[in-house]
């Protein structure tokens, strides 16, 4: 039974009527991008890769800091953590390192796109809204597609560099 239904007094009636359903999606709201526009998915990926990268950076500073101690300690740490070191090959960590490189490439390319768009370039100028409306989404589509294709080329290139399927 809801809170106020048990009592019939006026204050509880008012309390019930003033009860609101708090309709804030929060973090789940980041993922509605599929129903809305393409740039929303780019925003979500930029945010996720950013979170991965900042936490990776903090760990990376500590790991690379081990080079200041002694060659033996560096050797031991690299054998443990690196995917490909001096003949020791760990396929899982190597794959994760490739995923990290993909995250870096995407974040860099989308960041380059955002530098231009968030300062007001390539999004058109104020004009009267005449139906069918042409919004900033249409003006920046071409630029965004170019950036994403360049990012795709870099990612495929990184796949060749890491896994060398042509055997050269």
């Amino acid at each position, binding site marked *: 039974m809801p809170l106020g239904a048990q009592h019939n007094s006026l204050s509880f009636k008012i309390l019930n009527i003033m009860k609101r359903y708090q309709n804030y999606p929060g973090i789940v709201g980041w993922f509605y991008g599929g129903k809305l526009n393409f740039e929303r998915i780019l925003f979500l990926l930029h945010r996720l890769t950013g979170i991965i990268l900042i936490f990776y950076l903090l760990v990376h500073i500590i790991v690379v800091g081990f*080079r200041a101690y002694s060659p033996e300690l560096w050797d031991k740490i690299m054998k443990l953590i690196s995917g490909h070191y001096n003949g020791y090959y760990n396929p899982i960590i190597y794959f994760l390192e490739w995923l990290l490189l993909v995250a870096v490439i995407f974040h860099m390319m989308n960041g380059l796109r955002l530098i231009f768009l968030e300062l007001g370039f390539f999004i058109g100028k104020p004009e009267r809204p005449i139906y069918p409306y042409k919004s900033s989404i249409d003006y920046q589509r071409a630029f965004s597609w170019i950036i994403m294709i360049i990012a795709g080329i870099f990612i495929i290139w990184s796949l060749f560099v890491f896994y060398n399927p042509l055997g050269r």
Partner: protein
Amino acid sequence: MKEGKLWFFHIISGAFLIILLGGHMYYMHLSGGDPLSVENTFKRAKDLFFPLSYTIFVGLALFHGLYGLRGILFERFNTTFSQKVINVILILIGILFFIYALLTTWIPYLRR
């Protein structure tokens, strides 16, 4: 005024990071040889170019990343008090990690 300046520096550091991180990726993956081996690592520690560029790199990267994290956290915690607390925590983390990075890049160079 403060938010505008911080955001503008976030954008500028992002632009510099594209160049620096691109160079870092190129050096680590495309320059041939094993950049992580013991000899190469210690050769880099003795050359002046690397500690200098690493210092600038890590400083810009820490600012850029922690400002981004601050933006995400400010969406969840939007009272003035919690925002001040987050500011202090993130500045502390940034300074601590920057000092550690400074020490681990410059001490091997100064002891070469």
